[in-house]
């Protein structure tokens, strides 16, 4: 097993008196999918926000390739190579699918402050955008306005934008949310294809997908890590089965 | 500067600050609870002042004028909310800015048509038209102390209303979750109308009681509005506590500034704002 590319230690987030995330330690490795599950309000999205820089932690470390990035801004973290998709679709609704991806790809261009060269004329950026669209299965939708896409297609665009920034680490927050079975299947296959070159943290409720994808599984309840390890170990943990009322039914494949 | 002089400036500064608080609290309430920026807020200050002047000329008494003018401005506020502002709740702030800017122009012209463009003085009520001696040759007008007193009372009343009553609780709830409040069966529309009317009544009342000190003149609304904006930026939007802290700070800074460094006194307020922007952009008591 390779060295962890992203590792957190004792990560905590307090909002006044409320502790949303408490003393969470987990690590992500390239080639591995680490799934985080837990009931609503368990702190999963907050954890993702802490890792992506959308929120600063109250305490704890986030080590990326050996450097502590806790508290860094989200744009800095993105530029380091950590990409994130959102649970609530967070795309550019008035733009076309292609423009959404092109803009995302543009973020990697060092001298995008060039004010006279027209945006469509950067072949490198266009290529990256097309690759991202194709990977997410949206290449036939390139010219459509994002607001007119179906919900599932918007979730695909959400991922495509993330991919267009060519990250090393992917933080995916419920990518399957609201998708039908066919679309979910495509998304699961996409994530599987991405595994080889990326370190992936996945938050999901869809248990079929969870067990199809997880190399490691972490269960969060009330902001804390209840159990963490291989899917089998977690599934047979009595604590986990207790926490999920009628536990065995839910955790069976 | 000797002590008596210092005391006078201190009292003046506090009085000015408290008056500013009255106006600014209305602005910050309306914004914090309803999410509306009302550029015409200063116009209601002006309306209050002009009403006070014209009614006191008619009745011969400022007190009577104020008692008559308050219900008038409340009705005006409720009417405007129902007819105009109600359409703006879900809109971008830009359109609120534009609409209320247009309203300012309308108010200014109406004022010009109804009351003319001259400057007018307003007499202090006879009862309060005296001074307290401070030293052998310096005394302080009771009317100013009365203003400060009234402002403090209203501030306390506001605090009590918002923190300790059911209505206040509903107001605070409406601020954070309009839909939830509505689904609980509470008439959010009524609350908004009340809050709006309260906000501008405060501004108008401030104009009324300050009229003897400032006189009534065109543009008095714009002047007070800009200062109120600075108060709200420094104090933090939606925070009544912040409005109080910022108002007092500005009141004192401006008053002492005018005696100590008159050439740049007008700038002090903006320098303070710039400092707060650098150090704490959400305002002293604003939410990050």
């Amino acid at each position, binding site marked *: 097993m390779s060295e962890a590319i992203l590792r957190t230690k004792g990560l905590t987030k307090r909002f006044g008196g409320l502790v949303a995330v408490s003393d969470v330690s987990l690590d992500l490795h390239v080639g591995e999918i680490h799934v985080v599950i837990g009931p609503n309000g368990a702190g999963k999205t907050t954890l993702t926000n802490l890792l992506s820089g959308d929120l600063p932690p109250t305490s704890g470390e986030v080590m990326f390739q050996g450097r502590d990035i806790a508290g860094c801004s989200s744009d800095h973290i993105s530029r380091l190579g950590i990409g994130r998709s959102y649970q609530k679709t967070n795309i550019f609704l008035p*733009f076309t699918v292609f423009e959404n991806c092109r803009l995302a790809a543009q973020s990697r261009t060092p001298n995008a402050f060039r004010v006279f060269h027209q945006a469509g004329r950067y072949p490198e950026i266009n290529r990256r955008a097309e690759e991202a669209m194709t990977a997410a299965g949206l290449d036939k939708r390139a010219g459509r306005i994002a607001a007119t896409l179906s919900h599932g297609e918007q979730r695909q665009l959400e991922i495509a934008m993330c991919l267009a*920034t060519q990250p090393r680490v992917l933080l995916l927050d419920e990518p399957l949310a609201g998708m039908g079975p066919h679309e979910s299947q495509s998304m699961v296959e996409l994530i599987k294809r991405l595994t080889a070159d990326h370190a992936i943290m996945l938050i999901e409720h869809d248990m079929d997908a969870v067990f199809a994808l997880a190399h490691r599984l972490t269960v969060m309840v009330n902001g804390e890590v209840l159990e963490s390890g291989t899917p089998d170990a977690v599934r047979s943990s009595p604590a986990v089965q207790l926490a999920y009322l009628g536990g065995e039914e839910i955790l069976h494949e | 500067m000797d002590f008596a002089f210092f005391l006078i400036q201190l009292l003046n500064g506090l009085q000015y600050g408290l008056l500013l608080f009255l106006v600014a609290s209305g602005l910050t309430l309306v914004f914090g609870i309803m999410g509306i920026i009302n550029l015409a807020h200063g116009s209601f200050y002006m309306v209050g002042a002009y009403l006070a002047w014209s009614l006191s000329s008619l009745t011969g008494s400022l007190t009577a004028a104020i008692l008559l003018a308050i219900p008038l401005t409340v009705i005006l506020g409720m009417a405007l909310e129902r007819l105009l502002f109600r359409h703006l709740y879900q809109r971008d702030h830009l359109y609120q*800015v534009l*609409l209320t800017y247009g309203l300012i122009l309308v108010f200014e012209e109406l004022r010009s048509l109804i009351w003319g463009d001259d400057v007018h003085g307003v007499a202090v009520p006879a009862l309060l038209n005296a001074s307290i001696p401070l030293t052998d040759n310096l005394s302080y007008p009771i009317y100013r102390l009365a203003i400060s007193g009234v402002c403090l009372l209203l501030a306390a009343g506001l605090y009590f209303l918002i923190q300790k009553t059911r209505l206040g609780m509903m107001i605070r709830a409406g601020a954070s979750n309009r839909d939830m409040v509505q689904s609980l069966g509470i008439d959010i529309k009524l609350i908004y109308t009340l809050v709006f009317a309260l906000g501008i009544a405060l501004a108008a009342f401030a104009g009324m009681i300050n009229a003897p000190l400032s006189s009534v003149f065109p543009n008095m609304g714009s002047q007070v509005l800009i200062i109120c904006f600075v108060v709200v930026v420094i104090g933090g939007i939606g925070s009544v506590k912040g409005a109080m802290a910022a108002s007092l700070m500005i009141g004192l800074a401006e008053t002492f500034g005018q005696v100590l460094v008159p050439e740049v006194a007008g700038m002090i307020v903006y320098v303070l704002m710039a400092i707060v922007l650098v150090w704490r*952009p959400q305002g002293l008591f604003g939410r990050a």
Partner: protein
Amino acid sequence: MSSRLARFLPWLAVGLLALFPLVESTFYMQLLTKVLIMAIFAMSLDLLVGYTGLVSFGHAAYFGLAGYALALMAPKYETVSLWWSLPAAVGVCALFALITGTLVLRTRGIYFIMVTLAFSQMLFFIFHDTKIGGGSDGIYIYAKPVMKMGDVELFSLEKLQNFYWLVLVLTALVYLLLHRVLGSTFGRALLGIKVNEHRMRALGFPVFRYQLASFTLAGALAGVAGYLAAAQYGFVNPEILSWHQSGAVLMMVILGGMGSLYGSVIGAFAFVLLQEGLSDQAWFGSWAKHWQLAMGIFIMLIALYLPQGLAGLLQKLGRKPAAEVADE
């Protein structure tokens, strides 16, 4: 309408405008000059409001600052050279915009509106209360700037139509400049920031830097307009920095249609012509004095019922069907 025709129209418009001085009317030429200057002012604000999503209510600060810069640079009864005074005035505005931008861009939304207003008021007080700019009396600019090559005057700006052509050329240049900039990666990023600032940041864009650049450019271009306005009018006073000026230009942008350069030009035309019309005594007699009443009502109606502006109205009339819109 076909995009070929659409691209041809601006050139046609410029051509027609260039021929306008053949109509021998001093009044209308001066009016048109004023309109074009306001068009530059409106386009500069549209960059901020329509393309970057930053609503500034203090844009008159840069307009006025450039005017005062010219007034202070011009020696009392002599002429000043256009070649260095225009860039100098614009440079001052750009610098001031850079400095205030770093402060005001720490805020957003409603705070931003209030803070930009407050800063322009600060500038107003500086010029109104101190002797720097002649106080509330203002400063006269006795001679128009000169365009000289060595000792030879190329083009006398004292002649009405020459000044008009200069303004027309500058308006066209500003339009072209903004058109290029907005089509570049920088411009697309600004639009992205306007639509979804949060996601732009999450994608790795240093949003603050983009906003500051936009703010500075907008201030500089407003300076071009302010310089020309002062040169045309021959007089500056604190009113050019007032928030009424800021409100007027914001109104022009909305009236024309945010996020559309030609919309800002249309908006400037419509607003200035409306203002001239409403305050014309020949039409409205004694009511002309109270033109702001009608203007205020007009502004309110636009805010309530025509949020997309005139350009939006035009677009609706020539709308393409469905969602298939290919990008350029």
